[in-house]
């Protein structure tokens, strides 16, 4: 039995989160300017391996926008091998000082989840990013619930970054799909600031299905709504989509 005060506290936090998300819906990604809610578990999905870098970029952005530093980044050897290693100068270019980052490379998914639970329990951290490639063995409702509870107790932003993995039921507060979007070209058709297509696949206690296109602004450490060029995505998704199950929502692009 939870203590009444703790319960009230948790309800209040959930309510606060819901309000933030409501605002976000009105203001095209306004919620994201402040990053993901602390003390919660969030899932970020990059649907294919080619989108892994976008997933990582979005996760970094979320942590920085929430001001949730330092960051503990957990990766598997497989991710390190297939996706390349995290590159210091590139992290600086995203606005993340590598001095605020500890990278842990583990052997397999179960070690990853175990280290993630340890990290989520550490009140000295701002964000824990656990990056898993493919079907994560051992990730089930119990494991994600454990991460969620640990994050609630410590106040850490717990991000489960999943690359090319199947969506499984989890205790996460929000679940996002992220894909790269064409950037706004600079002079001489040079690629501009990182841009992403986001879809809120699920959020606890509120409708989901919203899509945004955002651009990461390193100087203000926030996501700006990106002016859409070409095909416009609906800013407010159809409400019917909100109730659909979180199982595979979108095929590989």
């Amino acid at each position: 039995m939870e203590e009444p005060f703790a319960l009230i506290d948790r309800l209040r936090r959930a309510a606060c989160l819901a309000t933030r998300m409501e605002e976000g819906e009105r203001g095209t990604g306004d919620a994201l300017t402040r990053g993901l809610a602390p003390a919660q578990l969030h899932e970020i999905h990059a649907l294919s391996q080619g989108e892994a870098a976008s997933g990582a970029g979005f996760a970094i952005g979320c942590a920085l926008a929430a001001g949730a530093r330092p960051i503990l980044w957990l990766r598997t050897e497989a991710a390190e091998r297939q996706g390349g290693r995290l590159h210091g100068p590139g992290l600086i270019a995203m606005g993340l000082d590598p001095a605020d980052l500890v990278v842990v490379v583990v052997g397999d998914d179960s070690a990853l989840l175990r280290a993630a639970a340890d990290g989520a329990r550490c009140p000295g951290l701002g964000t824990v990013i656990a990056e898993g490639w493919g079907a994560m063995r051992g990730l089930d409702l119990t494991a994600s619930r454990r991460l969620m509870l640990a994050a609630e107790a410590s106040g850490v932003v717990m991000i489960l970054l999943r690359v090319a993995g199947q969506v499984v039921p989890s205790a996460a507060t929000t679940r996002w799909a992220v894909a790269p979007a064409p950037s706004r070209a600079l002079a001489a058709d040079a690629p501009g600031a990182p841009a992403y297509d986001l879809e809120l696949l699920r959020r606890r206690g509120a409708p989901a299905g919203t899509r945004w296109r955002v651009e990461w602004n390193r100087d203000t450490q926030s996501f700006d709504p990106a002016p859409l060029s070409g095909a416009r995505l609906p800013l407010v998704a159809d409400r019917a989509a909100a109730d659909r199950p979180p199982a595979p929502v979108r095929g590989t692009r």
Partner: protein
Amino acid sequence: MPIERLRIGRPHLFVGRDEAPIAFAESVGGAVRLAALDPAARGAGLSVGLTLADARARVPALEIFPHDPIADADWLERLAEGARRYSPAVALDPPQGLVLDSAGADHLFGGERGLAEDIETRMARRGITVRLAYGDTPEAARTLARYAGTPAPDEMGAIRRLPVAALELDEDAGAALIAAGLKTVGDVLARPMATIAARFGREAATALRRLTGEEDSPLIPRVVAAPIGVERRFAEPVARTEHMLGVLEELAGEAARALEERHEGGRRWDARLFRADGEVQALRVETGQPTRDPAVLLRLFRERIEALADPLDPGFGYDLIRLDVGLAEKLDAVQLRLEGGEAKAEAVAALIDRLGTRLGRERVRRIHPRDSHMPEQAELLLPATEAAPRAEWTHPEPGEPPMRPIHLFDPPQPIESLAAETPDGPPARFRWQRKMHDVARAEGPERIAGEWWRRADMTPPTRDYYRVEDVRGRRFWIFRHGLYSETERPRWYVHGLFA
């Protein structure tokens, strides 16, 4: 010794054939010769260096095993590790000897005789033959152990009675000594040293001086003794891991008090568990910050034990547990915890220690800047417990898009450039990992020349880097390896991915 190693390590080889003489053979310059013999083989008239064919002809029942000097060296190392129960200063004397500095250690066993008896009984239980000798110098001790002469009333007397072979001179000098009628070390010592040096070489004189202790031959221990070490011996071996951890905590408390007196904290802690049957298990934990908190240490040791590939096996129990502080640093009596930041940093440091102990220190890293313009060398991955080197990152200009990728491939991955290129432009289309990418936006080239000063003989080709974005928004960092003027058909690589 190799035979005893085999008997202990692989007893199944000897089931039911205890009687046969055994020899080890190795091939030397095309011929297979005997390298080591057991007493039975020696008794049958065989000697080291005999060819295998001859030996077989003389003793048909001879059992032959391949000579394995590396396994023998490893076996000796393990014995040395086990010998640390007697004294921290143990030196290897290959191929078959160990030299212990027992000064200050023998009182624990009731004097030199007691120590010798303990070693003999312990070794005999394992089936290992030992020849022990004490000496005032390491050289005297090992020579006496190897070339047991006739009994003598004192050490000097024993040395005098050793055969001249004990001087271990080369064949010519040894033969010359014997030809001169000098049979024992004492005979040689009776001559003036200058004559010996003149007739039999400087080595002979040096060997003599070493033996008599006139010239120092210092003992070089395998492991430098730790500044602080505590241990506990048990008459009744400790068989339960929990009990062992309890002892370890007590020892940590003792070490902590010793550290406190010196205003220090330990950063590297080595626990050695000496099993009653002679095996030694070593556990090491390291912390990023100096500590002397037994509870923290015990947690790390638990973590370490859990992470072991082979679970800890107490066997018949541990009869000696030793804890050494291998590395100590300044730690003031009370750590200030006024600011919240300090406590937070401490929580992170404790987490890093835990993860490092469980996963291995080098798996928990920080990324540090390094002064190199080769992208793959522009950063340094160091264990998070290590201090940062002095270097600065180059910070980007405001408003500039990321010029470096967040994921870097090392080595770069080859791509296939498909569409026609302009001489100084990126491909309009390329294939990477069996997927086609149509380039929509590009910027470059950023020319990065090889660091010619590092390899004077061969300068690696220049790389021209491009930031490209495909039609779906995926951003790549690709380069052409070599200018068109440098190579016939330069190859293309993807070196990294932008977020």
